[in-house]
């Protein structure tokens, strides 16, 4: 099994009513639950849009977030396990994020632990 990181970008929720937000939440939660049941889930969470960006040494120039300005900003992530990149992409296609105008970057996590 290989691990993949799913980077969730964009996503448009501003126009959702409380009832629709709830319906969206139900979709996401059901998907997370399914990942767990299928033993694909490793981790996942939201990323705050604030934060800091650090430049290279020797200056270590620290600049402020937010990173939300960009439409491609990463707002959340999942780490899943799957047999192949294709499988990981298939799994990701079920993620409700894609229904809300969001995108997903699927990136293989390279395992260096065995040399």
């Amino acid at each position: 099994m290989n691990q993949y990181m799913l980077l969730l970008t964009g996503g448009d929720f501003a126009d959702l009513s409380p009832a629709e937000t709830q319906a969206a939440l139900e979709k996401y939660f059901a998907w997370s639950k399914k990942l767990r049941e299928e033993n694909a889930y490793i981790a996942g969470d939201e990323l705050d849009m604030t934060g800091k960006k650090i430049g290279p040494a020797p200056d270590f120039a620290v600049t402020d977030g937010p990173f939300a300005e960009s439409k491609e900003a990463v707002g959340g992530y999942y780490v899943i396990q799957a047999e192949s990149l294709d499988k990981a992409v298939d799994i990701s296609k079920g993620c409700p994020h894609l229904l809300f105008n969001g995108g997903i970057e699927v990136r293989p996590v390279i395992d260096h632990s065995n040399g």
Partner: protein
Amino acid sequence: MNIEAEWNISFRLEASRLTAMMVRQFGLPRLDLIEDAVQETFIRALKAWKTDGPPENHRSWLALVAKRIVIDRLRRDRIYTALPAEELLPCPEPADRLAFDEDELSLFRLCCHPSLSPTSQIILTLREVGGFTTREIAACLLTAESTIAQRLVRTKRTLRTIDPDKELGDETQKIESFRRVLYLMFNRGYSFQTESGSAEAIELCDQAISLTLRLSRSAATSRPATHALLALMYLQSSRINSRLDPTGACLRLEEQDSKNWDQTRIALGVQALGAASEGDKMTSYHLEAAIAAEYATCDPIIGPDWSRILTHYDDLLNLYPTEVVRLNRAIVVGMIQGPEAALALLDKIRTRGRLSGYHHLESARAFFLERSARKEESKTALHQALLLATHEGDRKLLQRRLQAVSVDLNMN
């Protein structure tokens, strides 16, 4: 997966609770800001809860986040400097989640304020108490979103100029104003459904039912008349999906397939009617619900008990001596005593002329004229009704009847 079942959360319910709480804390003039903050709160909840579900004290979580968003925005605008204690106050789950709390009732009271027009009351109630967005209100009122948005702006402006405690009358009158708005909301949805056959119209009826249910579960507003209104809505809406044929034409009661009636709603309606009979005061809601119950629970082969229905109409006429009640009563009289008796009553109504623009009068006349074999006159009355009817479902039914009468006439 259904959150409401699994976690016992309804964002729509929480929306009205949060709005009401913050209107008390930050004041009515900040209603727009509060509405935005409530919406933002749920989006944050979506992001925060989507993987692991909500925290155990999710109501406190929502309340705190909503409050923080409002304070942040006020600070940004340099309006608000003193900061209230922000610790996560315990927000216990109420004994009955559906019951309105005090804040919600005072917000609801503002929405029903007599200085607002009935339509504005409905719109504002849907927005503030029902947790609907402008777009959702527009859909269920079959109106453009921009129209609703403008109307909301105007209504809120009016709201700022009124004294919330004035003109409200005593406690009974206040509760009646809640019921009146919900009754209008329900009727609007019920008649829109004839017009368009649309699912959104049913949504409006269902929203009226769920708010009435909440009123009936709140100690301050749980009165026999509230239960009667709830019964009326359940019973009427039990037929909502069988009222139209596949072409969108209205079906008459005897043409509907009673197997399609929603038996759960009928049972809930009958139950609510039981709770309504505890008081000693008879209201129009009681009588209308009793009439609806006669239809909904009748034996499909024998048909409704017309003489009991007539008794209810007699009582209703005593309470509300209006022409519309007289018209409905005349139809029932016709079902018992025959078409001539009905036509005599209908002609009196017609002579008085107050219902001259109401197609149901001509439509009822046509029905009884046909039954007394006066087909030519029946045809004229149907033509007249068609000129007056505006709803598509009503028009299709009338056209169908007109065709049938014309065929009969040609055969003879």
